[in-house]
């Protein structure tokens, strides 16, 4: 069994760097649609892949959260990436294989992956 004592070490380590994590308002937000439609379409592995990639790259300024159904169930799994000061980008019909590219190109380098966005999907 993993021991609760290990959490104490994680706590210490996290608190040491909390100084530059103070203004969460400037975080990049990744918002995953997690209503019945999103879950059935495969939102969970998409969300977990985002968490994985963020951890692998040690990105401190990104938060992943969930939202409900926004009424475009046929386009699920959907994810909004919200970079402070920029327009929200909505990705649609995602699968876990598409996530590393969004993290690299959009979240790290600031260039949305246009071909995965809702704008590109609607033109098809």
């Amino acid at each position, binding site marked *: 069994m993993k021991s609760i004592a290990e959490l104490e070490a994680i706590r210490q*380590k996290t608190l040491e760097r909390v100084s530059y994590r103070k203004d969460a308002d400037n975080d990049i937000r990744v918002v995953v649609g*997690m209503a*019945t439609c999103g879950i*059935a379409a495969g939102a969970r592995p998409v969300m*977990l892949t985002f*968490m994985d990639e963020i951890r692998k790259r040690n990105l401190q300024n990104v*938060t992943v959260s969930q939202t409900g159904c926004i009424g475009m169930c046929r386009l699920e799994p959907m994810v909004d990436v919200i970079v402070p000061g920029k327009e929200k980008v909505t990705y649609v019909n995602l699968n876990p294989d598409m996530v590393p590219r969004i993290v690299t190109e959009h979240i790290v380098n600031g260039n949305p992956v246009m071909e995965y966005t809702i704008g590109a999907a609607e033109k098809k």
Partner: protein
Amino acid sequence: MRDLSMHVLDIAQNSVKAQAGLITITLARDADDWLTLTVRDDGCGMTPEFAAKVTDPFTTTRTTRKVGLGIPLLKENAERTGGMVVIRSAPGRGTVLTATFNLRHIDCPPMGRMCDTLLTLVVMNPDKPDFLFEASRPGREASFDTRAVREALGEVPMNTPDVTDWMRQAIEEEFKPILEVS
């Protein structure tokens, strides 16, 4: 829903929306391969009138649309295996949903990645509510309680990547031998 783990993720979201403080999810598998899923919360509960019609797909608390498919889909899948869904609820006292599945039935959906569901619930709801996960099969049981994790972490959020990774390992260690084997 392709598997049971997705139902659990979906149904537990109802408890989150009911402003629960603690959600207890229990998966008990007996010697005859019947699985009993119980989702218990201390949220706002439902009136008898509303509880009576939640299995109707045209019932929802949402105001944006008139459909809610979570419970109807669960009920359909449970009943296809010879099981059922029972909901007990009272306003202000919370809700207990019980679903039974005959795992040996040809129409029973696979278990799916239940550990991923449990982790997702915690990570997506880092502040509130707390979760107690319990699972059992003959001769073996496991539990995971986010209240203990929260207490050990103090002010550090539950969705900190290192904490998430620790919880993933802890949940998989506890539950995989019970839930993700045939």
